[in-house]
């Protein structure tokens, strides 16, 4: 009797083990030695170098690279085109693209680092620019130092390259432009007696007056956004502002740029010309359904706008308003572009860099093809393509791509900082308190700064 029971339990365990076997489809053989926990970026760089010598001449080993990134219509599409371009000269080259959203990438990177298990990581990851430096600093073991692999960084705009540079070392390959644009519904502006020219090269005070008129006459708020996050960042950046001083210390209280941004932003919300949304769906929905008369974000927002086909010809783009009374204020900023990273797990970083050099860092064809999805190059030579001069029907035949390229040149450089996301949440919280609980700006910013200092002391 006992025997039968043991057999049963054993067979149970066995069947479990079999299940383990058949489900054991780990991702491609691209992984190599585990990064050791606690190594500094320099050490990671060192190991990357040694791997380079081992793996030069991509003939040895596999020519398949695994990539984690998101958005089939945009990033994945670009990557697939790049793959086919590179395959012309390297027929054995293959990309294995695994759709993984940004939040998941973050979670998995954190899990890998905290648990010291790195072999789950792919060869290449996509990162949002605003989180890049923070990730490199927090998870140095994940990133390969790409500085010495001969990528042509000088052919990219310095502001863009800056997002993925830490202590003068390069950890990223620049991808799409996040140059911020202001888009407005031509027809709605007309109802209020305005044209796009009335919103070009203006200041936020002027914008506010006109936005109130638009709201009064048409009932449409001019802008909406996901809470204050993106809007605040764009406004800060347009004046070269940062939440931190040059040494990386929190700088929220005596920060005249931030103060101006908070004042303008709270007024926008209180006046009803800016609607705070809580989800991407209602944010985009606001524009697509005509509830909101404009949009202000990175130029990739054009892809979202164009989903509303019947609004073709009704949109026009221009530059941003600039902050009043700030010496460094400009009409230009950047928001939400992204860059590629090669991980320390990549057995052949040279292959990865060569691939990027031939495509994202050197292929006119690639950039021309992805233009239709709204992905605009940060590789400077791409702007010379005749495609960039073409008028776009959706945007009332404006040559939007060349417009955006000219804006890009004027985007001020900014210090993002490792604790950028913490700072952004804390300021957003301060803004919420000012708007909804009647908090005053001084004490709320002070409270936000105290919180940020507290978060950074980390003890």
């Amino acid at each position: 009797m006992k025997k039968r029971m043991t057999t049963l339990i054993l067979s149970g365990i066995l069947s479990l083990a079999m299940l383990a076997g058949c489900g054991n489809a780990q991702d491609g053989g691209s992984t190599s030695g585990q990064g050791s926990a606690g190594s500094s970026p320099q050490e990671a760089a060192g190991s990357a170098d040694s791997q380079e010598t081992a793996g030069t001449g991509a003939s040895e080993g596999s020519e398949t690279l695994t990539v984690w990134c998101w958005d089939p219509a945009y990033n994945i599409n670009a990557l697939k085109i790049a793959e086919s371009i590179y395959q012309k000269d390297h027929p054995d080259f293959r990309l294995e693209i695994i759709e993984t959203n940004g939040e998941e990438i973050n979670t998995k990177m954190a899990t890998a680092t905290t648990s010291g298990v790195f072999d789950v990581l792919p060869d290449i990851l996509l990162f949002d620019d605003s989180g890049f430096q923070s990730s490199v600093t927090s998870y140095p073991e994940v990133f390969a130092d790409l500085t010495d692999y001969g990528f042509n960084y000088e052919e990219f705009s310095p502001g863009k390259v800056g997002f993925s540079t830490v202590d003068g070392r390069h950890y990223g390959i620049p991808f799409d432009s996040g140059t911020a644009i202001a888009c407005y519904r031509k027809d709605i502006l007309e109802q209020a007696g305005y044209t796009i020219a009335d919103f070009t090269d203006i200041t936020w005070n002027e914008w506010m007056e006109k936005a109130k008129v638009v709201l009064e006459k048409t009932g449409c708020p001019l802008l909406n956004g996901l809470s204050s996050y993106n809007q605040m960042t764009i406004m800060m950046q347009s004046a070269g502002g940062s939440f931190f001083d040059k040494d990386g210390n929190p700088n929220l209280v005596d920060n005249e740029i931030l103060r101006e941004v908070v004042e303008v932003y709270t007024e926008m919300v209180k006046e009803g010309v800016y609607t705070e949304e809580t989800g991407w769906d209602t944010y985009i929905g606001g524009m697509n359904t005509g509830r909101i008369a404009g949009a202000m974000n990175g130029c990739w927002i054009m892809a979202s706008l164009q989903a509303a086909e019947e609004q073709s010809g009704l949109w026009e783009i221009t530059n941003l308003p600039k902050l009043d009374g700030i010496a460094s204020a400009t009409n230009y900023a950047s928001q939400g572009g992204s860059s590629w990273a090669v991980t320390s797990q990549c057995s052949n970083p040279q292959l990865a860099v060569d691939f990027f050099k031939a495509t994202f860092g050197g292929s006119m064809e690639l950039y021309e093809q992805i233009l239709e999805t709204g992905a605009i190059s940060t590789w400077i030579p791409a702007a010379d393509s005749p495609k960039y001069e073409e008028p776009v029907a959706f945007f009332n035949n404006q040559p939007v791509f060349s417009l955006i390229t000219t804006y890009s040149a004027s985007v001020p450089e900014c210090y993002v900082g490792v604790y950028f996301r913490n700072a952004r949440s804390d300021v957003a919280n301060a803004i919420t308190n000012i708007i909804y609980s009647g908090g005053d700006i001084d004490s709320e910013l002070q409270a936000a700064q105290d919180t940020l200092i507290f978060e950074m002391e980390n003890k």
Partner: protein
Amino acid sequence: MSRNKKLLRRLPKNIVLMVISLFCVFPLFWVVVAATNKSVDVLRGTLIPGTNLAENWKTLVSTYNIWPALTNSVKYSVVTTFVSLVVSSIAGYGFEVYHDRGKDSVFKVLMLTMMVPFTATMIPLYQMYAGMHLLDTTVGFILPEVSAVFLIMLFRQNSRAFPKEIIEAARIDGESELGIFFKMYVPTMKPTYAAGMTITFMNAWNNFMWAKLIMSNDATQTFPMLISNMTAGHYTDYGELMLAVLISTLPTVIVFFALQKSFVQGMTGAVKG
């Protein structure tokens, strides 16, 4: 009391229940409507079923690899449900039928695991998994769910209703202990199994955090993960998204429909102090 009067007396009750039912079902109705409409119309808040279902289906299938995700979800959920019912019901039976002071205290200690927040054990668990090469595997998915205190409790309580005389009689007939369990206990406890099945299946199907952590490629990802990717793009097609949501809701609804009678019955006696 006449028939009409009786009906009339139930009227307020019916109205209350109807209103609440409508409130509960309305959002689901909305999903169905959205799945048949174009994205823009969904965002406009239309409440009329549209004609775009086929189109949404086409884009969904062409943009996303839905079949592997769907089969994975089915596989993980079915295996989880099956294994966890076996393991937990044997344990629940063991706790009750052979109970003594030692086993009762062990049970109390195990009850504590219901209170452990997942965020706390996530990283250590992940480390353990990586060490045992369980990432990206079915076993990896099911293991944390296999032994559920809630199920053990359900079976432990319901075992009280299982007559001891049957066990004694079977023992005299020379039936093995395991034989008694499988041949007598399991068939009589069908409703309890139905209840356990519904709950476990629903939890496994909607399990998101853990799947997200341990599954890392198209071949192993689950359907909820696919849905979450659909909202990560620069533009989300709501007709397509809601169709996916509808598809993801169907299995749990079907399971509940199929088992609902026994479900309620099986919960009966789950908790009797």
